């Protein structure tokens, strides 16, 4: 208990005083610098702590991962591209790559499409807030929690035995045979994607809904006065105006899909052909003790996300330029 109080005091007093001290210090140092260059030097000095942290916790690990990806198991000798060759020749890792692509396409499509649909449909209903909260709520559940919940939903018992899984209870009560949702490939990968979509649709909906509200009503009304149908209004006015937001949400979803790990780990751990790249990376490092291969996978993942990030940044710059 005492140590907690001391810790708290350190955070409360020590950290701010270090920051204040640093700023007072650099302001004093700046006085020694000619007034002319002060303006040029000051931002760098103010930014320096953030940049140092960024370097230690982001840039250095990235560089080190890159180096490790060319090294052997003991992380001592360089072995060229062997770790990358392994990734692209091994059956298990190729399955994980294929599944990650499925995740990328379908999670993005379902979450963004579903979010867009919900945002537009709920826009004009009376219970908008309530309906939107319902869809948004799963976002508050951790992935591990969601995995456990859905594992119960997908539970399989042999035909004839009482079904304790929600889905199979529904299927059998309608006279069907129980389905092994999580064990039958390739259906199981889509079942996992649905769990992720269940979480992320609410996120897409909230962002898209906010963008939708910002479209001026005059524009829509003018179109309606001119005799456009609701569908035409959507296709020619609403959708084009939402497009930048859709692009941002889609990029976020794509990166989320590539990072997908928790749900797979909890629900199948990659068994029955549901492996994804991130889970494979975890296995290589923590189960198989192959830091080189794990690093290679990490670098491949990073390279996959770079184009989307660049696209996002470009888009952002274009928007800034338009203002």
């Amino acid at each position, binding site marked *: 208990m005492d140590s907690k109080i001391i810790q708290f005091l350190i955070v409360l007093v020590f950290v*701010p005083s270090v920051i204040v001290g640093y700023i007072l210090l650099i302001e004093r140092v700046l006085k020694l610098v000619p007034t002319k260059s002060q303006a040029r030097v000051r931002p760098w000095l103010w930014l320096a702590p953030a940049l140092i942290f960024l370097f230690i916790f982001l840039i250095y690990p990235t560089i080190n991962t890159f180096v490790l990806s060319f090294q052997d198991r003991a992380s001592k000798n360089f072995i060229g591209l062997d770790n990358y060759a392994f990734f692209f020749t091994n059956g298990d890792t190729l399955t994980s790559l294929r599944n990650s692509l499925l995740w990328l396409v379908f999670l993005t499509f379902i979450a963004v499409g579903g979010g867009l649909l919900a945002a537009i449909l709920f826009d004009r209903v009376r219970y908008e807030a309530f309906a939107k909260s319902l869809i948004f709520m799963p976002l508050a559940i951790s992935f591990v929690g969601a995995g456990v919940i859905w594992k119960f939903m997908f539970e399989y018992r042999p035909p004839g*035995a009482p079904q304790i899984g929600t889905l199979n209870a529904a299927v059998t009560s309608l006279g069907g045979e129980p389905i092994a949702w999580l064990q039958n490939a390739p259906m199981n990968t889509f079942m996992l994607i649905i769990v992720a979509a269940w979480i992320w649709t609410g996120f897409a909906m909230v962002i898209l809904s906010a963008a939708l509200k910002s479209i001026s009503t005059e524009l829509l009304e003018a179109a309606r006065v001119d005799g456009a149908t609701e569908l035409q209004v959507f296709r020619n006015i609403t959708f084009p105006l939402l497009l930048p937001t859709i692009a941002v949400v889609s990029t976020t979803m794509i990166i989320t899909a590539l990072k997908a790990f928790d749900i797979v780990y909890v629900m199948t751990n990659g068994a029955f052909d549901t492996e994804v790249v991130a889970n494979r990376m975890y296995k290589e490092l923590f189960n198989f003790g192959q830091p080189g291969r794990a690093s290679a996978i990490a670098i491949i993942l990073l390279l996959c996300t770079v184009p989307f990030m660049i696209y996002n940044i470009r888009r952002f710059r274009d928007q800034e330029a338009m203002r």
Partner: protein
Amino acid sequence: MISRNDWRLRLGVLAVAGVLVVGACGGGATQAPASQPAASQPAASQPAASQPAASQPAASQPAASEPAASEPAASAEVTPAPVACDAAPATGLTQIGGKVSILAVWTGSEQDSFMCMLKPFMDATGIQVDYQGDRNEAALLQTAIQGGSPPDVAGLPGPGVMADFASQGALKPLDDVIDVAAYKADSPPGFVDIGAADGKQIGIFIKASVKGLIWFDPNVYKGGIPTNWDDLQTKATAALADVPGAKTWCVGLESGAASGWPGTDWIEDFVLRQSGPEVYNGWPKGTTKWSSPEIKAAWEAYGQVVSPDAVYGGPTTVVATAFQDGGNPLFTTPPGCLFHHQASFITDFFVKQGGAKPGDYDFFPFPDIKPEFSGVEGGGDLFGMFNDTPQSRALMQYLITPQAQEIWVKRGGAISGSKSVSMDAYPDDISKRSADILANAKNFVFDASDLMSNAVNTKFWSSILEFTKDQTKLDSILTELDSIQSSGG
């Protein structure tokens, strides 16, 4: 120039920034505990996968899969704890005095049992025992050895790690410490050899466990103990005539991230009884190839067990059923199956999850397939000596005596490898009969999957799932296992 007002403004901004920083940190700190259970749960359910050495506990002992296993708080350091135990004073020990430090995995009631085991030793020799028990013992031990200050005596995570420590010179050979010949004579064949590396005796067993028991409901199956594997099939067919709709076996393979491990025990039991201890012991070492006819035959035999007409619910149910629930259809009305193959811990789940009452379940040992390869597969807790002191020598000598071993046996939860421990010492029927199986075993082999590297073992688990779902893939599965094993896993 900066005016006074400017300064005030700036300080105000700084103050706000400071508060924000504190807020951010504070928020982080309060959030951390909330997110911790989520983060630690998957890890805890799979210590096997993340700790190469301790791959056995998670898989075979449900207790270890509880979150407690990963909590560093499960550590306890005690000086001779006053444990209530009725151990008789030890004989044949001389007063030495001094101290001996012990590191082992046992905490709680297991720790009490071990301390009770040590009490006569401490009383008779005057040696003070400094015991530290920690669920995360494997990692602690590794660190202590690297730091050059290992405990005098410690529990070893498994034979593979033991051999590593021995080759590093950390573990001291026991050949001139204990009477190895007498120890061997008092134990089942092959048992003591598991503690040997490079021709030297390195480890001794504190207690053992027996795997590969076949469970049944005596109200349903009344055919008696089968004499061999074929007899089991005959008896099962006869029994099934009275139980319409039931199948011979119940199998459950699902176990979170470690799914598939119950199947490894199946394959191991078949390998041992079909092809003998030599093939079996060469298998984790890589001298018996996965694609060899012997190992393949074991997979095929397992394949028959999980074929649609032999197993409850068919292969899909097998892979989708949690191992804890695997045996439950034994006790349903009407019963879903006759037999369930699992180590003795499963009775806990029979009672708590399967709705069975004591008396509803019974077991017989895995039947022989070839009479010359009769044997038993099991596990056990190995101990090794890291510092050669008179005190640790005396302790090692004491620990393998039947008197010492009997103390834990009497308290329950342990089976002794010593044949001299009286069967009457076992407190319940199941442990008594398990001990009988161990004592009369013609061969004792250690759980092979626990001797394999983590990569091979993990692949073994997932291969079990893959094969159970689609038996036509066997050849490619075995080739792949070979390639992982030969690449050093």
